[in-house]
Structure formats: C-alpha cells, structure tokens
C-alpha cells in the first residue's frame, strides 16, 4: 500500500495560481493516541499505539514557471499492537496484544519539482524515501496536468515504490528476515470548473502490488496452531474518487465534499465519505469542522481465527482486513497575523463492526479508535 501524500500541482483547474503565491515554510506537530483495547476480552498490554510526529515543509517558486516542494517527517511510535486472536472457552474471540515494548521511529524525506505552474498546465516529478528500523521505502512519481478547454483540465500520471522489509527479532520469533515488495500505480483525473463558485474533480487510480504483502509481526490461530499471517503475494486495487468544492459569498465559506470507492483483488471493498466546511471569520480567523465516514468489507481470507487448517490457502486476523466502519469528526482553527499563520486542531476517530454498511459477519476485536491533536505554524515567504 502507499502511505501517502498526494503531490498534485494544486489549483490548475481553478485558476492560474502563481508559484510565488504558494511560497511558504511550514511546521506541524501532532500527537496520535489510540484508545486502550476495550470492552471485549483481551490478553496482554491494553495500551495501544502513540505516535508523535514532526513535519517540515518548504514550498517555493523557482523562476517564473517552476516550483520546488521539499518536506521531512519524523515520527516516534510506542505502545502495543494486536498480535493474534485466540478462541475463548465460550467461543468469543480474545485479542492478544504484543507487549508495550514496541518503540520505533520513522523518517521520511520527500521532494517534488513542478515545471509549468500557470494555467497552461505542468508536470510534477516527485521522489520520497522513508526509513524505519525494519522498513525502507523508496518511491518516484510523475504526473502531468493539461487544460482541455476553458473549463476542463486533464490530469494523469504514475508512481512506483520499492519497499524493503526486515523485521526485528526475526530469528527469535521465527519471522521472515529480508523481504521486499514493489508497488506500481497509475491514475487519471478530470477537473471541471462548473461555474464561478464550484469545481468538480473525478478520477480513477489503479494499483498493483507484488512481493511480501503479509504482516511479519502478526500471527493467526489456525486449528490448534499459531501460524504466521499469510496473504497472497499480489494485490491489485482500483479506486474511483469524486471531489467537489463550492465557495459561498455569504456566509464567507467553502464546502468540501469527497467520495471514494475502492475495491481490491483480496475482496476488500470500501466507501469513504468526507465533508468539511471552511468558515472564514472576522480578524482573519478560520474555523474548519469536518466529518468522515469509512466502511469496508473484509478480505476473503480474514477471520478472527480459523478452525480448519486445510480449508484455507491464506489466513489473516489483522483487524485492518476485517469488516468495520469508522466515523470521525474534526475541528481545526487558523489565525493569520501578517505573514504568519497559526493553526491547531483535533480529530476523534471511532471504529466498530456495527458501523459497517451491511453489517459484519465476523468479529473484529482489534478495531482501533484514536484521538489526534495538532498544532502548526506557517510563514508565507512572499
């Protein structure tokens, strides 16, 4: 899977935004804190993941028709995570957690160069490198946008990522020692200026993953045995996205509506709905409440545990492959003072099998809920 940020040249569809107008230096600090495992039965440490993140970004125009964007992210992760699920005496699944000894950090460097920043379109070349103690990912991408007429802009591109996986304590816990996976992705989009106040974008992305796609740290109860998480070594996926933006003169605000449908060869099907309201306030304040709903149907080889070893070629009890839904609400606040912009926000994310569209057939005891807070500082260079 791909982690990350979209590197789309912004606003070609809307206007001939100059690169100079985007020049800024930015910093974000965020704290991500997962709820303790409850209320179902579990074994092990209930204190789940906590991640502290620092993000830095420099975006600037270069000459009259190019833009440079570089960013760095450093994260420190600690806590426990779901390990495997055991059947209880009453048949209910018992989530077994890893010890709270996981402590790792991740550093990511990312850069992009956009040639052509005006209304005639442009091409963006991007590269990123992400390093953890047990995971290294190198990715490159290219995307091009071109106006078809005064109202339509076509975008297309692709990316490739090569990831190396080398789990810790591999010998002690009988994990794989060195594995790799490759991910290729292509996409196309069409942005439409509907009128003076609204724009719509729709697009399709196709992904193909090959290599080691299992989770080296997770185990599965299969009959009377505990086996390693085992997934197919290929995965193809497709996603269709629609994004709509509408500006209001009174009140001075903008509405954002996003929808994504995704489907993959493992059987996972998901729907994502997002809405946000960007309300401008006097004295250059801005308030942004947002809502998000996510629902997915499980992979064909997911179950909390498996009774018959012979009935399955693949098996996983990773909660991320189970059926569940998630509802999240966020509230962000911004204040502009001269060339400085201060921001802060909070997101509350709650997931449950009951939230899934159509309900869930199998228990997913490890579903996660979390709270995330962030503060930010931006300095506009011009």
């Amino acid at each position, binding site marked *: 899977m791909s982690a990350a*940020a*979209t590197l789309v040249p912004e606003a070609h569809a*809307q*206007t001939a935004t100059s690169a100079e107008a985007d020049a800024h230096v930015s910093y974000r600090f965020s704290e991500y804190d997962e709820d303790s495992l409850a209320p179902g039965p579990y074994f092990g440490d209930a204190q789940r993941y906590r991640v502290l993140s620092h*993000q830095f970004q420099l975006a600037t125009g270069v000459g009259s028709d190019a833009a440079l964007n570089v960013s760095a992210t450093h994260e420190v992760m600690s806590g426990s995570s779901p390990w495997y699920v055991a059947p209880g005496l009453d048949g209910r699944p018992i989530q077994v957690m890893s010890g709270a000894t*996981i402590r790792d950090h991740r550093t990511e460097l990312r850069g992009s160069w956009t040639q052509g920043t005006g209304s005639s379109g442009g091409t963006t070349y991007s590269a990123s490198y*992400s390093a953890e103690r047990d995971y290294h990912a190198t990715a490159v991408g290219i995307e091009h946008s071109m106006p078809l007429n005064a109202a339509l802009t076509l975008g297309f591109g692709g990316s490739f*990522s090569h990831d190396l996986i080398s789990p810790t304590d591999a010998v002690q816990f009988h994990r794989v020692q060195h594995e790799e996976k490759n991910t290729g992705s292509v996409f196309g989009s069409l942005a439409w200026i509907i009128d003076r106040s609204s724009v719509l974008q729709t697009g399709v992305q196709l992904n193909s993953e090959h290599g080691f796609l299992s989770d080296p740290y997770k185990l599965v109860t299969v009959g009377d045995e505990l086996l390693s998480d085992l997934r197919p070594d290929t995965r193809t996926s497709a996603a269709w996205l629609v994004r709509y933006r509408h500006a209001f003169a009174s009140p001075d605000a*903008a509405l954002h509506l996003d929808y*994504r449908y995704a489907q993959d060869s493992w059987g996972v099907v998901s729907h994502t709905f997002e809405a946000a309201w960007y309300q401008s306030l006097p004295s250059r304040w801005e308030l942004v409440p947002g809502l998000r709903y996510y629902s997915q149907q499980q992979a064909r080889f997911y179950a909390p545990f498996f009774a018959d070893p012979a009935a399955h070629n693949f098996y996983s009890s990773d909660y991320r492959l189970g059926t569940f839904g998630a509802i999240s609400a966020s509230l962000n606040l911004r204040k502009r003072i001269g060339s400085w912009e201060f921001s802060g926000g909070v997101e509350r994310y709650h997931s449950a099998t009951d939230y899934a569209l159509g309900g869930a057939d199998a228990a997913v005891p490890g579903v996660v809920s979390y709270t995330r807070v962030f503060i930010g500082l931006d300095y506009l260079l011009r």
Partner: protein
Amino acid sequence: MLNDFFNGKMLRAATVLILFASLGGCATTPVQPWERGRLARWDMRWDPDPLQAAMNDHTHFSKEGSNGHIGAAGGGCGCN
C-alpha cells in the same frame, strides 16, 4: 478483481460522471480568468493544507484496509 471493477456499477457511475463533466464543460459558458476570484481562494483548493492532508492519508492508510487518491503515491510503511 479489475474485471469486477470495470464491469461494475462504480465504473458506469464514474463514466457517466466523466461524460457529464465533459459535456458540461463544453456546454456551459466558460468561466473567464477574471471571473475566478472565488475559485482562487485558499479554501477552494483540493487540499488546502498539504501537510495535514499527508498526515491524514498516512494515518488512515495505516489503520484501514484500502486506500487510493488522485496523484502520485509515496512508499509504504511498517505501520502497526
């Protein structure tokens, strides 16, 4: 899987929307550059705060079973 996607309702819906957008883009009076003041606003961008969008994508990617967005993707992570 891709056959399911391309034969499915979602592809038909996407195709209809793209055709609708294409025809709409041809049929309506074009919005002239000097009429795009509202569209040029910061809060009308697809992702007004790219750093926050990147963190949102990373978090959801780490905790959910599917992902996908319009644009080039980065590498994966060993996220648990």
